[in-house]
């Protein structure tokens, strides 16, 4: 067994790298939207409860598992969990700690590349003099490999490759020379940029630069508490989900970083420091920037509909570049660079953490050199990521995100806590956790870890599996209930597929209820547009566009009312389900492939021991 000598250079370097791992797009783009949609200021109550009962304990678990593994020279979860659980099954559960990171990194780097591209466009002034509609169109066209408003051919692929190259370069420099240096410079810079943007956002004055209301109105909108929402289980699950994603738990990267901590070094204080640093960035900065700027310039009503229709990513990429221009050429460009630069730093410090377990696995178990391991990791990320770029609109991106970025995390986190508290044993685990601690951790956490956190995680996993349709919790009964199309069971059953449920078909059916607007000529060809007429007011006015290629024949005319399942086009179609199914098969194959690689590595290890 080769015990690696690599360690973190300093304690603050470790804390910043861990904080950089946790601080991601979700802090700035997901948190404010979740808060607004789940009771405004009242959301903070379940959010903080989940942070204390689930977030902090999970940080303790993952840091402990990591440092424990480092004692034996293990840096990836399959072998650490095998060592703790003493059964081969834990080794294969640990595979999730490599699988999730590889898959999430593949599409996360794509989002990261959007931010890099938007930094570039803010500098060269692409957004100058564009209308809001044109800025939104620029983002939509970005995903079309052939057409971009900026004039750079294959722009999305080029920026993706550039992002990967930066990641590979930093990874090849190792822990101290690469990741730690980036964190030491990047995280403070991110906080400074965040503070500048937040101050600028809240100081927006009605009437100045075309602002409709004061920026503080945005904070009023986000923080006004609707206490009745606290009785809705949906709000509590949303809070638990947000804590999960924001702390980057259930992935396997915290364990990997923690495995490089010296054995006589504290983990209790450091884990709390990273957890609260992340919360500061999320609540204070993330909760301020996006909403205060957009409400200031657009007013409350417009932003309310944007929140439900576009979400955080839509507001950030389709609206903010337009709003920044209102501050004038220089300040507008600076704010664009600051905002997308901040997102880029948040992204890269997280993607580096995702790639490290893979690099470590290759180094530890296949004796691959650091640089080579970084290049192999980058290539693997590229191979996994290319389908998300080429078939972005066909739903491959979302499919990756669902299975690797949501379902796997819930499962893996649940299994880790069971391993920590019940299999390895809370007595041993607590001793391991508090060893060399720089603070006294309240003993209550021992009992929270033993009972409350495992129960919470089991409930969350079961909820993700059997969530009722439309999040209607009153529908749950002993006789059964209809599961939501976004639940794991609903996904497995194909409830989210709709009427175009065959891979190849001669007829295309409408998957919305609405009125046909007619054939509309767009940048990349004609489309048949249907305006939704759903009773659900959120969907009202949403336009669904179906590409109308030359060889297709439209079966409906303008102003026809169509329902879900009405035939709208004839021709030879490859339905979205084809791409989604291939993505699923690919993910299964990838998991099996990684398990096999782990099996081979384990055999080699045990032969050496014998």
């Amino acid at each position, binding site marked *: 067994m080769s015990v690696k000598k690599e360690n973190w250079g300093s*304690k*603050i370097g470790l804390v910043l790298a861990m904080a950089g791992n946790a601080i991601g797009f979700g802090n700035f783009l997901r948190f404010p939207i979740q808060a607004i949609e789940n009771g405004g*200021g009242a959301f903070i109550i379940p959010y903080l409860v989940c942070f204390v009962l689930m977030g902090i304990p999970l940080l303790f678990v993952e840091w402990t598992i990591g440092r424990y593994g480092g004692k034996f020279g293990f840096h990836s979860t399959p072998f650490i969990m095998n060592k703790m659980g003493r059964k081969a099954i834990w080794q294969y559960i640990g595979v999730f700690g490599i699988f999730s990171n590889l898959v999430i990194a593949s599409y996360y780097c794509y989002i990261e590349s959007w931010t890099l591209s938007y930094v570039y466009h803010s500098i060269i002034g692409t957004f100058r003099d564009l209308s809001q509609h044109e800025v939104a169109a620029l983002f939509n066209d970005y995903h079309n490999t052939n057409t971009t408003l900026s004039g750079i051919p294959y722009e999305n692929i080029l920026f993706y490759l550039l992002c990967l190259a930066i990641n590979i370069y930093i990874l090849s420099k190792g822990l101290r020379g690469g990741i730690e240096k980036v964190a030491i410079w990047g995280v403070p810079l991110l906080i400074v940029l965040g503070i500048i943007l937040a101050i600028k956002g809240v100081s927006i004055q009605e009437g100045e630069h075309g602002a409709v209301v004061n920026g503080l109105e945005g904070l009023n909108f986000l923080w*006004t508490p609707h206490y009745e929402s606290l009785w809705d289980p949906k709000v509590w699950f949303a809070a638990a989900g947000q804590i999960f994603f924001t702390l980057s738990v259930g992935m396997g990267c915290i364990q990997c970083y923690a495995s490089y901590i010296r054995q006589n070094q504290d983990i209790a204080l450091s884990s709390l420091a990273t957890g609260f640093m992340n919360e500061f960035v999320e609540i204070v900065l993330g909760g301020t920037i996006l909403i205060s700027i957009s409400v200031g310039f657009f007013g409350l009503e417009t932003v309310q509909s944007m929140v439900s229709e576009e979400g955080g990513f839509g507001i950030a990429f389709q609206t903010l570049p337009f709003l920044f221009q209102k501050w004038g050429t220089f300040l507008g460009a600076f704010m664009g660079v600051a905002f997308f630069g901040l997102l880029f730093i948040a992204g890269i410090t997280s993607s580096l953490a995702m790639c490290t377990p893979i690099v470590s696995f290759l180094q530890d178990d296949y004796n691959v050199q650091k640089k080579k391991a970084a290049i192999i990791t980058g290539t693997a990320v590229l191979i996994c990521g290319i389908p998300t770029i080429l078939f972005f609109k066909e739903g491959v991106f979302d499919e990756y995100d669902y299975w690797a970025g949501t379902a796997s995390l819930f499962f893996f986190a649940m299994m880790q806590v069971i391993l920590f508290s019940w299999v390895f044993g809370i007595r041993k685990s607590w001793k391991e956790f508090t060893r060399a601690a*720089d603070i006294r951790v309240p003993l209550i956490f021992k009992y929270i870890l033993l009972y409350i956190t495992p129960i919470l995680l089991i409930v969350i996993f079961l909820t993700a599996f059997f969530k009722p349709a439309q999040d209607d919790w009153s529908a749950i009964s002993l006789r059964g209930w209809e599961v939501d199309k976004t639940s794991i069971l609903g996904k497995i059953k194909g409830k989210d597929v709709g009427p175009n449920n065959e891979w190849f078909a001669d007829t295309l059916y409408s998957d919305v209820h609405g009125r046909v607007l007619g054939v509309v000529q767009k940048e990349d060809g004609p489309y048949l547009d249907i305006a939704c007429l759903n009773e659900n007011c959120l969907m009202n006015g949403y336009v669904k566009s179906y590409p109308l290629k030359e060889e297709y024949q439209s079966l409906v005319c303008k102003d026809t009312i169509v329902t879900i399942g009405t035939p709208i086009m004839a021709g030879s179609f490859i339905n979205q389900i084809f791409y989604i199914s291939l993505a699923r098969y690919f993910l299964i194959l990838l998991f099996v492939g990684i398990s096999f690689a782990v099996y081979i590595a384990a055999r080699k290890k045990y032969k050496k021991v014998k």
Partner: protein
Amino acid sequence: MNSQALILMFSVMTLVTGFALYYIIKVLKKK
């Protein structure tokens, strides 16, 4: 801003910032 929102926002932000600073300073001291 309405007073309820202001009080809630101010107390939560102070709490979170306070804890973050407390732990970071402690880490820096124990370096």
